[in-house]
């Protein structure tokens, strides 16, 4: 328990819109241990990104609101923190890297300016010092001709360089936790490999605690220590990565693993999970997966499945395992 650096308890984030209440996150529990890489896995629209944004309190407040839950970081509950307290944590203790580097960077300021801005915000540095530190960071990320890149605008960099600059920016104040939201999704395979390398190094050299959000099981296998599978705004299975992939318990996780095409086998059709993910406005009663579940029972449509511990560190939310 002392090894836990972040704990999310029963987080619920709803968006109140004209067309109804969007229950984007509907009861998510997980904990992040020091120095580990925890993967939040799930399809698009299952609530992973909103969970991450909720941790840092970055939810757009008129339509959205965290209506329940706590996010424990040290002695603080981030959900109950004042905006001022949150601002001291953002970028300094917990940093976030966003999905698409091009839209995440401000197009009218240089890379250098954007990194220096963050440095000077949290650390008592002179401009010269901040600039030097920024350049060192960029070098560490493997960016060549750092002096010039500092004065480049985002559109002048390639996709891979942008992503690296973004990562450098998030590292600038030596945060304890980095939340990476699908950093490998919008890039091609070669860059994906480079980025995964960077994250591996971060874990090794800096002992960084990482929350890695993705729907790419390959990336999970390469870099994750533990994984939390999210569906319909809820965490449905939590386990070490080897067990998630080797012996998945929840029917959804089983389905996900089976969907991965195996190049060594010959098949006529690719396997997929029938049906589509539920709309967060109209979530099914009981277990969110039951309409698509091949092993659904009557109780699944009535009651939400409680959490069951299968083995050390492996938990499932499914009526099958009660």
């Amino acid at each position: 328990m002392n090894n836990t650096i972040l704990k999310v308890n029963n987080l619920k984030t709803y968006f109140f819109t004209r067309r109804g209440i969007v229950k984007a996150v509907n009861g998510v529990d997980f904990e992040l241990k020091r120095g580990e890489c925890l993967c939040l896995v799930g399809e698009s629209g299952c609530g992973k990104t909103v969970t991450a944004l909720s941790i840092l309190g970055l939810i757009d407040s008129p339509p959205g609101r965290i209506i329940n839950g706590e996010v424990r970081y040290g002695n603080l509950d981030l959900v109950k923190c004042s905006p001022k307290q949150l601002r001291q944590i953002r970028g300094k203790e917990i940093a976030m890297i966003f999905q698409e580097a091009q839209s995440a960077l401000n197009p009218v300021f240089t890379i250098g300016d954007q990194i220096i801005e963050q440095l000077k915000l949290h650390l008592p540095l002179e401009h010269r010092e901040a600039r030097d530190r920024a350049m060192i960071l960029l070098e560490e990320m493997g960016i060549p001709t750092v002096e010039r890149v500092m004065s480049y605008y985002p559109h002048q960099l390639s996709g891979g360089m942008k992503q690296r600059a973004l990562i450098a920016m998030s590292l600038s104040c030596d945060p304890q936790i980095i939340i990476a939201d699908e950093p490998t999704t919008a890039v091609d395979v070669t860059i994906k490999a480079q980025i995964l390398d960077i994250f591996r190094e971060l874990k090794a050299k800096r002992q960084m605690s990482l929350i890695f959000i993705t729907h790419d099981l390959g990336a999970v296998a390469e870099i994750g220590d533990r994984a939390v599978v999210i569906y319909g705004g809820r965490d449905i299975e939590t386990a070490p990565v080897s067990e998630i992939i080797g012996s998945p318990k929840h029917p959804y996780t089983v389905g996900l693993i089976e969907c991965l095409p195996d190049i060594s086998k010959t098949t006529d059709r690719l396997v997929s999970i029938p049906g589509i993910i539920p709309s967060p406005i109209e979530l099914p009663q009981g277990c969110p997966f039951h309409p698509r579940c091949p092993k659904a029972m009557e109780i699944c449509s009535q009651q939400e499945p409680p959490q069951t511990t299968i083995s050390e560190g492996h938990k499932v939310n499914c009526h099958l395992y009660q």
Partner: protein
Amino acid sequence: MNKSWLRDYIIKRLFYSVIIAWSILTITFVLVRVGPTSPADRYLANIAASGQDVSQVTAAIEARYGVDKPILEQYTDYMVNLFHGNWGWSFSTSMPVAELIKSHWIYSFQLILLSSLFAAVLGILVGIYSAVKQYTRTDYIATFLSFIGISIPNFWLGVMLILVFSVKLGLFKTYYDTTLPLFSLANLNALILPIITLGTGMLAGYVRYTRSAMLDNLRKGFVTTARAKGLPERTVIGKHVFRNALLPLVTIIMFDLGSIVFGGAYLTEIVFGIPGLGQISFNAIFANDYPVVIAVTLIGTLLVLLVNLVTDIAYTYLDPRIRYD
């Protein structure tokens, strides 16, 4: 960032502007010559009343003003004169047009400058606030008021202001007092109603454009990044969002400036009797004094060209993605 192409662009644009200015001059000249007016028109009544032969006197007047020469010669004369700074002679005021303009431009300038500043500063602030607080009551009120602001005919607003504040309440004079020294508080006081008249439409425009430009940018990715960095909200909005909103804002402002400001200032001067270029052009119309009318039109046009060029250059500094080559 290397901007070597900027110098070439400026040169190309200046060259291009000269061509446009020249085309406009030519078009204006042709229009006037093709038109049925003649410098003798204002004297016609007098001529007839004094019993002289109209056609003879007309011919003499026209000869004196060089209007009877073949068009091409008139044109070259005109252009050459213009080049040497001779803008013609104003019949109605009996002085060179250039001098007339020199003594009156300052009034137009102060009116337009003060109104623009008032409209821009207030408009941008309200627009930003309205965008950030979208869907609140303040936003709805501001949007509604800005509709009203752009819909009020500005010359009517001027008349109404005079009606209420000068005629009924007696707080201001009904006409502009030209004896006031320019840099005095009394002058500013006299300009309050005109500034409100000219500025209201501009203000409403600024509120709308700023609001829409800000809204376009408020949902963009870099805003969340900025917040995730831990920046205070006022920096996120005031620096990151606003800087991006400046691009579309400046485009629309430039567009507006060309057409609306000159028409509006013209009318405001007439309503309040401010002796600026609009007023003298207006007087010149009824005295059939066409050199003055042409001159004022030309000045307006040249200013628009200048503003366009400056804005296009400013654009490259506002948005580093823009290149002109």
